């Protein structure tokens, strides 16, 4: 497919829009279905390979309205069922179709605190867009109403207009809440609890708040300015943010309650420890966890080779192991850092890849070479201890496993070697043990995830939790949703 630039897409949309408006009639369902799904304008793949700027450029107002006009306003609204925070999708989409973008964003904000983020990074094809009637009628989830892109447009419009007001805060209650971590779960709790007039202090281990949105998801997918804006809103609401503060070490969780007088605590510490494959050669120079690689690139800005003090070595041939969003982000970051070849090795097939479809497509457009049904067996080093090659095995799909996905089975004797100098392991994370270690009474699963009840409460009195530390690796919107639940419980606790 040749790349259509922003102007071209805008032109096509304008033309169609004026045609529709000139009829002055309500569109019939059939006419709605006939409107072409609006393509997201994006940077030319050849150009974006060399920069960190955002790839998807966002719809124009006309594209947004056209895409929104495709919605049939179904009575049953299966889309709402698919959204973890149950946004009134037909409501905000029809407001956008009318061109009433302010009303549209106001509807979204009743349920979501981070629409500019979720519009960009939600895996819509398995959430709100999965069961969209339009997609079903056109027999492809790709043709569903692009709910996320409309959400993104109206959120961006409000953000850029600077009309965004600081939410109203109720009078001070004299109660105070500690929020640990500063990812989407914690941001949501901080805002929701602060609105009720409680004092909120947010503790973040890193030197910058934002969680994975800051150090993991790259700039070219989620501009850091958006995350910073959300953080600034919290600050203007009077939330105190303490960075370089690791709960469990700088202060124990118990001490926050017993000594510092916090009335409730929310734990949103995220996933944490990177998993490795436990294969030979994994500690050679040139093997990174995706967390390390992405943190160096994003948070420490290694891509700015002139200014950053935390470097990433130049790589010629990079292999990324894994098939999720994290793997795509690592592979695409490696492309941008100037690697000659970037390979992605995944032991199942593309159908099973957990990554968002758009990320897989973008990665391919940018030249990432996909190897499916293959996996690393061992990594080989040279005499200096640097990676020089990787031995792989081929796989085939066998019977379905517990997750319902067909299990990959190795093909004996299928070993082959590829020459590489960098290996990035992106096969998931274990839970961060720090709070558990220093708060023995906290009940967790055997994988270390904190167990909470339906109100988000942990086994410890006055302590709540949510996000990846509860769910294992999840999504921004799920983390946010759990934050909402926990915040409501905390507000209830403190009201009594």
């Amino acid at each position: 497919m040749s790349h259509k630039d922003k102007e071209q897409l805008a032109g096509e949309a304008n033309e169609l829009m004026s045609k529709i408006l000139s009829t002055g009639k309500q569109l019939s369902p059939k006419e709605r279905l006939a409107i072409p799904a609006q393509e997201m304008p994006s940077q030319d793949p050849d150009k974006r390979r060399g920069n960190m700027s955002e790839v998807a450029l966002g719809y124009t107002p006309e594209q947004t309205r056209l895409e929104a006009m495709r919605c049939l306003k179904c009575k049953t609204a299966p889309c709402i069922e698919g959204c973890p925070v149950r946004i009134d999708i037909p409501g905000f989409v029809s407001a956008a179709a009318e061109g009433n973008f302010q009303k549209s964003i106001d509807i979204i904000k009743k349920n979501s605190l981070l629409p500019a983020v979720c519009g960009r990074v939600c895996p819509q094809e398995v959430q709100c867009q999965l069961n969209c009637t339009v997609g079903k009628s056109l027999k492809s989830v790709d043709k569903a109403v692009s709910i996320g892109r409309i959400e993104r447009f109206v959120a961006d419009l409000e953000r850029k207009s600077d009309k965004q007001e600081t939410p109203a805060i109720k009078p001070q209650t004299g109660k105070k809440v500690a929020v640990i971590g500063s990812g989407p779960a914690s941001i949501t709790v901080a805002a929701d609890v602060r609105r009720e007039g409680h004092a909120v202090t947010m503790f973040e281990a890193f030197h910058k708040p934002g969680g994975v949105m800051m150090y993991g998801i790259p700039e070219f997918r989620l501009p850091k300015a958006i995350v910073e804006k959300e953080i600034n809103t919290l600050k203007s609401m009077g939330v105190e943010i303490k960075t370089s503060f690791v709960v469990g070490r700088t202060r124990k969780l118990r001490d926050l309650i017993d000594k510092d007088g916090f009335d409730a605590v929310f734990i949103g510490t995220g996933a944490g420890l990177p998993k490795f494959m436990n294969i030979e050669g994994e500690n050679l120079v040139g093997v990174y966890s995706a967390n390390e690689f992405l943190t160096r690139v994003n948070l420490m800005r290694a891509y700015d080779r002139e200014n950053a003090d935390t470097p990433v070595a130049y790589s010629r041939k990079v292999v990324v192991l894994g098939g999720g969003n994290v793997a795509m982000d690592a592979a695409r970051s490696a492309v941008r850092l100037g690697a000659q070849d970037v390979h992605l090795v995944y032991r199942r097939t593309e159908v099973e890849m957990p990554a968002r479809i758009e990320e897989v497509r973008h990665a391919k457009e940018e030249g990432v070479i996909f190897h499916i049904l293959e996996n690393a067996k061992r990594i080989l080093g040279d005499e200096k201890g640097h990676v020089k090659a990787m031995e792989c095995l081929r796989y085939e799909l066998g019977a379905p496993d517990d997750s319902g996905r067909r299990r990959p089975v190795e093909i004996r004797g299928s070993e082959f070697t590829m020459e590489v100098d960098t290996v990035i392991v992106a096969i998931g994370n274990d839970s961060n043990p720090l709070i558990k270690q220093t708060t023995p009474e906290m009940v967790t699963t055997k994988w270390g995830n904190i167990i909470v009840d339906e109100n988000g409460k942990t086994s410890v009195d006055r302590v709540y939790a949510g996000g990846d530390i509860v769910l294992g690796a999840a999504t921004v919107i799920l983390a946010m949703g759990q934050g909402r639940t926990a915040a409501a419980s905390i507000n209830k606790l403190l009201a009594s």
Partner: protein
Amino acid sequence: MNKILEKKQLSNEVFRMKVHAPLIAEERKPGQFVIVQLDSDFGERIPLTIADANTAEGTITLIFQTVGKTTHNLADLNPGDAIQNLLGPLGRPTHIEKFGTVVCVGGGIGVAPLHPIAEGMKKAGNKMIIIMGARNKELLIMEDLMGKIADELIICTDDGSYGRKCLVTEPLKEICERVPKPDMAVAIGPPIMMKFCAQTTKPYNVPTVVSLNTIMIDGTGMCGGCRVTVGGKTKFVCVDGPEFDGHQVDFDNMMKRLGAYKNLEDKAHEKCHLEESMVKAKK
């Protein structure tokens, strides 16, 4: 932001700083470290051991050697200046108990992190033998403080400019041969020194703790950049360590990983010396 309250140059390359950090001072235990970052946007995050702390004053003491860009920039700061980001205390504290006789070996700047451990061991009632080594007399630090703790103090320099002319492993071996042999050894210094200390004590079955100084980023277990192989297993120095059983550590792999960015670091270091001399030339 943490204010620097005192600064003293201990040798040509070694500085001591007292920094305001009341919470860290309250929580820290021997063996733990902090992560220092001088610039939130581009600065490197470097680990430094908490050499001492004063809860009454709310201060911690850092002792560091200028080896590259960040440590140089830190050394350029003065009382009244602030460190932008200081995170800690990190790592597991040293396991301190009464073992009997403990031999502590400190090489170069390693004496700084060794000091609080030696002090803790002494307080726990151990007999303390301390070996200190440095390339030359000028690089030797904290002799007086260590002297106060030691029941027996042995000093060696590579060039013989002070104390015995030998490597620290020589007296260590002699001590291992004594009857009764020491119950415990702690060795902190350059990786190569720790490697040979562990090799020295191994035949005598003297348990030997080493404190590893890998490259770190977050210091909280999130990145895996600090990982080392210990007893065939992967461990994260920032959360599983920094102290490990020296007989189990794969030092060769660790040293290779430490050198991973050597070229780039050397360039940054050169650049900062160049800038320094340009500034001087201007004046």
